[in-house]
């Protein structure tokens, strides 16, 4: 069976699983709506106290949040298992994958969950936020911007996936590493606000060392027409290519060094 056939089979299994724990998945959907609502509500509350944070207005911040929600939606459909590398390693289940005659990374990414329930509400919420704040901001859409928007969604998803994959793959070195997962959730939170409100140090860190800024902050500036960030906005494809190379390197190096906790 080819990789695509396997992928379809995995998908079927995921749908069966969904059916088994139906009630739980409904709760997960509610939780996901709450967490997006939380982001919007936080922004609302902060902006009832102040008119702008370092020049960013409310609807600009909401637009960026909407964009990031869309990226998360795509990530959740296809690559959410990136989060689980540490639990595979910790439980020793990685060995099972390694004995099978298919690429370990492929199995890792597509075996376990699919979060069929996540994307629908994230998709609706993301688009709703974009439309709502877009109308309030009176964004002008040119053909160039539309093409940029579509390409960026793709590139940003790749960048986001690679960052999470690399951090997750660190658990090949330290067996129990649930704090990597917490750190990744933290990166999600960070991305909800414009990067430069965190000061120069953190902006530098999140641009050059953990380039999470290229996921939504910098690309959004092209659409929001903040000219001072244009160079960064067009740099994201290069960042994506570098990160793909880096992911391959980290994974190959880690899997060589990996020692199974199982006997």
């Amino acid at each position, binding site marked *: 069976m080819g990789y695509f056939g396997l992928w379809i089979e995995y998908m079927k299994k995921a749908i069966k699983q969904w059916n*088994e*724990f139906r*009630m*739980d*998945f*409904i*709760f*997960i*959907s*509610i*939780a*996901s709506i*709450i*967490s997006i*609502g*939380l982001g919007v*509500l*936080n922004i609302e*509350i*902060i902006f*009832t*106290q*102040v008119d702008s*944070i*370092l020049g960013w207005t409310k609807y600009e911040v909401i637009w960026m949040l909407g964009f990031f929600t869309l990226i998360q939606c795509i990530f959740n459909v296809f690559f959410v298992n990136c989060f689980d590398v540490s639990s595979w390693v910790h439980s020793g289940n990685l060995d099972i994958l390694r004995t099978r005659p298919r690429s370990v990374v492929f199995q890792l990414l597509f075996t376990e969950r699919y979060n069929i329930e996540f994307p629908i509400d994230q998709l609706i919420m993301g688009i709703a936020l974009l439309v709502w704040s877009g109308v309030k901001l009176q964004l002008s859409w040119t053909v160039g911007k539309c093409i940029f928007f579509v390409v960026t969604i793709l590139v940003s998803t790749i960048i986001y996936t690679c960052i999470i994959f690399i951090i997750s793959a660190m658990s090949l070195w*330290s*067996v*129990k*590493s*649930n*704090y*990597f997962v*917490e*750190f990744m959730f*933290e990166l999600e*939170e*960070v991305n909800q*606000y414009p990067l430069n*409100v*965190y*000061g120069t140090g*953190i902006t530098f860190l999140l641009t050059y060392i953990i380039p999470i800024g290229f996921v939504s902050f910098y690309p959004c500036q092209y659409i929001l027409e903040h000219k001072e960030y244009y160079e960064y906005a067009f740099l994201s494809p290069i960042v994506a290519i570098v990160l793909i190379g880096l992911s391959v390197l980290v994974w190959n190096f880690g899997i060589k060094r990996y020692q199974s906790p199982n006997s």
Partner: protein
Amino acid sequence: MNKYFMYMLSAVKCELYYKVNIVGMVLTSMFTLLIQVKLWQAIYSDNTTLSGITYSGVFVYLVVGMIFRKFIGNGIDDAISDDFESGKIATDLLRPQNYFMKSLCFDLGRGVVHLVVFGCISLIYLIWNRELVASYTPRLILCVAISAMIAYIIYVLMSFCIGITSVWFGRSIGLSMIKAGLFALLGGTFIPVDFYPVWLQGIVNVLPFKYIYYVPMSFLIDVSNERTFWLNVIIQILWCAFFAIVGKVLYRAAKKRMVIQGG
């Protein structure tokens, strides 16, 4: 009493075994804290007080709040639902012990390690910025500590109830996520409840989440909150009683309903 203490001790040992993990915990929490502080600094950049709250009040709220959050952790719902799903509960039921007390003490061990490690590091920082904490009397700090202990018990009881529901729903991930979301939304983990709009404060007041996080920390934001101490403690104890009763009923029902496969 001694046996429960041993559970706590073993949890401490488990926690200390993964040293890299502890370092990861400290670094992640430091990063989270730094991000939140920087964001609030940006919000306060044009104003000295917002809704009558000064920046230093929010700063101490964030720092001590982070220590407190490390102490209470993510709740015991994962551990409980895992016990019920995997059938490990069978051995626990055979032992002469109170299952809830065992879970509580096991979690307390983890909490103590995190509190000591992260608390020490943060306290150095707070003592270094002595002028921020100058207005706090020992009496007030005692108030915070007492309220925080009761809050921890409410949180553990609540997550105990959620963990048990896995007997009916197959899993409890969804409910745990709702709990975490509501906790962040209504507990005031990021934005102090004082900033919330009036309609939201009305909702917050009738739900338990505020009493788990905001209430113990509120004494730090504004010293004059101390006069509401006794009223808040009484409400906290009532919530404890509520969740204790719900937990007891659910636990009885779960023991009747659950099926353990294998011997």
